[in-house]
């Protein structure tokens, strides 16, 4: 009989091993899934995980890696702070959309002003404030009325999507777009464009912001009282109140930071890789970032690595789609599976598996 036994303290070693283990198990299970779909599993896994980095077209894909990883990391860093404190913001997708809309709106309002030193920073500010404001809705409802932030933040994603549709079809529609939905292309508007900073690397301002966020979060969590309070609240809310933590302030801070970073990610996306506000502008980064945050063990450096890995599954997934005809949904299922396996093997961090006589449970 196999049973679990709680470790006296969480195993440090396993906490590093489990994410890697989860990725390996997911590759095996994913391979099986692809085999069921009639694809060569080894070839599919190779197309997703190996070819984009080392294959024939790696020069193109490697640049894409940072483009996709940037927003994922940026959003996941914000989410991880809340998750550590037991504050579950799962509506980052909505905050990302609203950030993009606000950033784009400022850029489009100032069109065709040429002062980049003014336009671009204002757009950044608008993106941050947009995401922040959207996240403040669940935050304030939570602190004022004790409303469940999980449900409110998530429901607001659907509201944000409707606002996005409304904007793409109405207020922000390109007046010179001959009636097609979608805004002016910001990446072609010099003062507002979020350009690639080093050609061929995919490095843009959003990626820079992501790296800064990683460092910021690392210092906050390891060296600062606020980070300590965040961790304390997540592990033991009652002890946190005893230690003088004000839970409401923490809710505002964590949701606010997550919203601001998600909004920032949206703004950099709309002014760069995506270029314009369209009905289907959002591509699920806000949800995938949840997987990134957990896979990275809510640790800033882990999130950096996990963000790169999930960016790889996006890129590799696209490649597998065009080369092998693997459906796009397969990658989505694959990512969901990854989170499942991670949660399953995570148990090894806190529990020991014992094989022996069973307990009456």
């Amino acid at each position, binding site marked *: 009989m196999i049973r*679990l036994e*709680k470790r006296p303290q969480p195993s440090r070693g396993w906490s590093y091993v489990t994410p890697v283990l989860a990725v390996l198990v997911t590759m095996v299970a994913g391979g099986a899934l692809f085999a069921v*779909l009639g694809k060569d599993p080894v070839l599919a896994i190779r197309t997703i995980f190996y070819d984009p980095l080392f294959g024939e077209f790696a020069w193109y894909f490697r640049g894409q890696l940072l483009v996709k990883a940037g927003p994922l990391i940026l959003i996941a860093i914000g989410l991880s702070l809340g*998750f550590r404190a037991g504050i*579950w913001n*799962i509506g980052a997708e909505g905050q990302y959309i609203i950030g993009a809309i606000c950033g784009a709106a400022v850029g489009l309002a100032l069109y065709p002003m040429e002062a980049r030193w003014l336009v671009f920073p204002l757009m950044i500010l608008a993106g941050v404030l947009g995401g922040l404001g959207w996240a403040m809705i669940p935050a304030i*409802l939570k602190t*004022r*009325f*004790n*409303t*469940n932030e*999980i*449900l*409110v933040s*998530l*429901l*607001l*994603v*659907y*509201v944000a999507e*409707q*606002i996005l*549709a*409304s904007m793409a*079809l*109405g207020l922000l529609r390109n007046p010179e777009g001959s009636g097609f939905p979608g805004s002016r292309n910001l990446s072609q508007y010099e003062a507002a464009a979020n350009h690639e900073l080093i050609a061929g690397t995919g490095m843009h301002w959003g990626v820079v912001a992501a790296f800064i966020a990683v460092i910021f979060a690392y210092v906050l969590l390891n060296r600062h009282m606020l980070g300590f309070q965040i961790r304390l609240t997540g592990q033991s809310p009652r002890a946190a109140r005893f230690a003088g933590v004000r839970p409401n302030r923490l809710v505002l801070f964590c949701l606010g930071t997550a919203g601001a970073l998600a909004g920032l990610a949206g703004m950099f996306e709309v002014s760069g890789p995506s270029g314009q506000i369209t009905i289907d502008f959002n591509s699920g980064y806000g*949800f995938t970032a*949840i*997987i990134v945050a*957990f896979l990275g063990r809510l640790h800033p450096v882990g999130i950096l690595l996990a963000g790169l890995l999930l960016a790889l599954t996006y890129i590799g997934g696209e490649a597998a789609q065009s080369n092998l005809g693997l*459906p*796009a*949904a*397969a*990658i*989505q*299922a*694959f*990512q*969901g*599976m990854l*989170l*499942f396996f991670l*949660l*399953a093997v*995570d*148990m090894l961090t*806190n*529990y020991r598996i014992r094989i022996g006589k069973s*307990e009456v*449970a």
Partner: protein
Amino acid sequence: MDLSTIDPAILLASLMVASTPILLAAIGELVVEKSGVLNLGVEGMMITGAICGFAVAVETGSPLLGFVAAAAGGAVLSMTFGVLTQFFLSNQVATGLALTLFGLGLSALMGQGYVGIKPPGLGDVNLGPLADIPFLGTVLFRHDFMIYVSLALVAGVWAFLKYSRAGLILRAVGESHDAAHALGYKVVLVRLAAIAFGGACAGLGGAYLSLIRVPQWTEGMTAGAGWIALAIVVFASWRAWGVLIGAYLFGGVAVLQLNLQAAGAHIPVEYLSMSPYLVTILVLVIMSSGRGRAALNAPASLGRSFHASS
């Protein structure tokens, strides 16, 4: 805008149809939460049920088999959540999210070949003279059998929780798993059963969406219905009849906004479409600010992992 095109009887009848997917999912989640488990994967189980039911109904030509398959699909998927949270003691919030993300991907994958197909229809139950009663006949007695099944489920869950010994044990487990364990009840088994029931109900709800309400298969067609079902459980403060009221209230808003769209109201479509979500948030706020009895009715062990350490 021409409001005279809206017939109140038909509006009420379509309200019941619009509400049923959420009602089914919410009554299942109510049982899950009463056992002390928070399963945020309702959306994922619903959409999996939607495609399972759709595929089987199309392949066999039997909507009934479709519903059976949907319930089975939802229950099987919920067991991944059950195993992870009950045996591997994973965080319920994270695992529920994983279930939703995985379910959305899996369903899209399964639904590849079913886009644009019309499923076999499910006829209305023949209730004879009842259906001919003016107004009430149209509202209440000209529906497909799943609507009556959903109402029976609500009544059944209510009676189960209130009067049966098994229901009492389920509530006890949700209230304090340590005390229930000390008295010798199998906390993990009770919870697994509740999770499976919740999964089956969510699957039925999803299938009702793809087979009757829409009826069609499109990716991501649940569009947050699972999340609204979760909110409705809170709105109902964990009472079965409250779930019915909440679901029908939500269905009313959904139908009304559709009717307003059709009647050509001078409100942009997007704002009408977001209204059900906004109403849900508003209701959540009202319910959670009024603490007291409602707060007491929430299962005390909700969302906490159980590990027998004796």
